[in-house]
């Protein structure tokens, strides 16, 4: 027996999922289906697109139109889906490596166009599926299998990156802050334009073990302690000292790409 939500939106014959014990990804996928349920979206009108990586396995578990694509290219495929069928709610589920390393250019250009796609990046700070290599979001001097003496790269702030590139909605929450995460995903899906959500996950198997972050429970508690709600940070900045802000970080609706494209089509139809 399963919960009603799982029965309604997940492919039970594909579960249990392959994610490791205590991986935050399952919590994030749960938040995505709660958001879709709260918005009462028609599952036939939802298209989930993913790339490659642990996070991108999510599309296989979700009972919507789904597209599991090549590494880093989820947003390129999603752009094609959205351009051909603008009435679909296109939701991209991707990882930190998939979005910001191999797919970095697709991210900034999708954001720049403000195409109506909701991108949810499951950020676990590491390449989990391939064995714990450091990613563009691995913090400075943290360890990975390819950074045995510490990672000397500075890490991306994915939310700043998306905002700088032109996303009209940007939000962040963690696997611990699952209620807030679902609300942010709801707002992101509701925004007509490019929406970016950084869903901070935890990887007890690679990132946790390499960096001595403790077990899955400890890593969840770390998310609780390290992140502070933007509403609290605005009222009491001293509580946010040395912490990372989560919440709705940017919301500035702009003209959307498929609308603008349709206007060109309509204009040319009139002329002929």
């Amino acid at each position, binding site marked *: *027996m*399963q919960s009603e939500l799982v029965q309604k939106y*997940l492919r039970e014959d594909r579960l249990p999922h392959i*994610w490791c*014990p205590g991986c935050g990804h*399952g*919590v994030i996928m749960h938040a995505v289906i709660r958001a879709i349920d709260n918005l009462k979206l028609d599952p036939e009108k939802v298209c989930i697109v993913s790339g490659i990586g642990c996070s991108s396995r999510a599309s296989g578990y979700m009972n919507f139109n789904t597209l599991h694509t090549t590494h880093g290219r989820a947003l390129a495929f999603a752009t094609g889906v959205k351009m051909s069928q603008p009435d679909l709610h296109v939701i991209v589920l991707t990882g930190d490596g998939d979005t910001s390393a191999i797919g970095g250019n697709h991210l900034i250009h999708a954001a720049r166009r403000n195409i109506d796609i909701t991108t949810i990046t499951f950020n676990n700070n590491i390449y989990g599926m391939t064995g714990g290599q450091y990613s563009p979001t691995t913090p400075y001097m943290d360890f990975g299998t390819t950074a045995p003496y510490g990672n000397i790269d500075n890490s991306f702030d994915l939310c700043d990156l998306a905002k700088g590139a032109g996303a009209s909605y940007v939000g962040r929450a963690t696997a*611990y802050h699952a209620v807030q995460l679902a609300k942010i995903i709801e707002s992101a899906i509701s925004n007509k334009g490019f929406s970016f959500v950084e869903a901070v996950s935890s990887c007890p198997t690679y990132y946790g073990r390499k960096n001595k972050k403790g*077990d*899955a429970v400890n890593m969840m508690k770390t998310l609780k302690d390290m992140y502070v709600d933007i509403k609290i940070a605005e009222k009491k900045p001293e509580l946010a000292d040395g912490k990372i802000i989560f919440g709705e970080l940017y919301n500035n609706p702009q003209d959307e790409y498929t609308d603008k494209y349709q206007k060109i089509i309509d204009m040319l139809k009139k002329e002929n």
Partner: protein
Amino acid sequence: MGMPKKVFVNKEWCKGCGICVAFCPKNVLELKNGLIDIARPEDCIKCGQCELRCPDYAIFLKEAPENE
């Protein structure tokens, strides 16, 4: 009005990570042989923290008759 809710587990999906055990505010849950066990169901306040936090959808609240 629906029926009262009750906590259920699906041991086949449980991977024994212990997150639900750690975040249950009433200490209802335990790991038994590495899998979830509802050790003290009478203490459950149906807050849903376990369902919210379980990465494997292995524990959840569902409406059920009292005697089930």
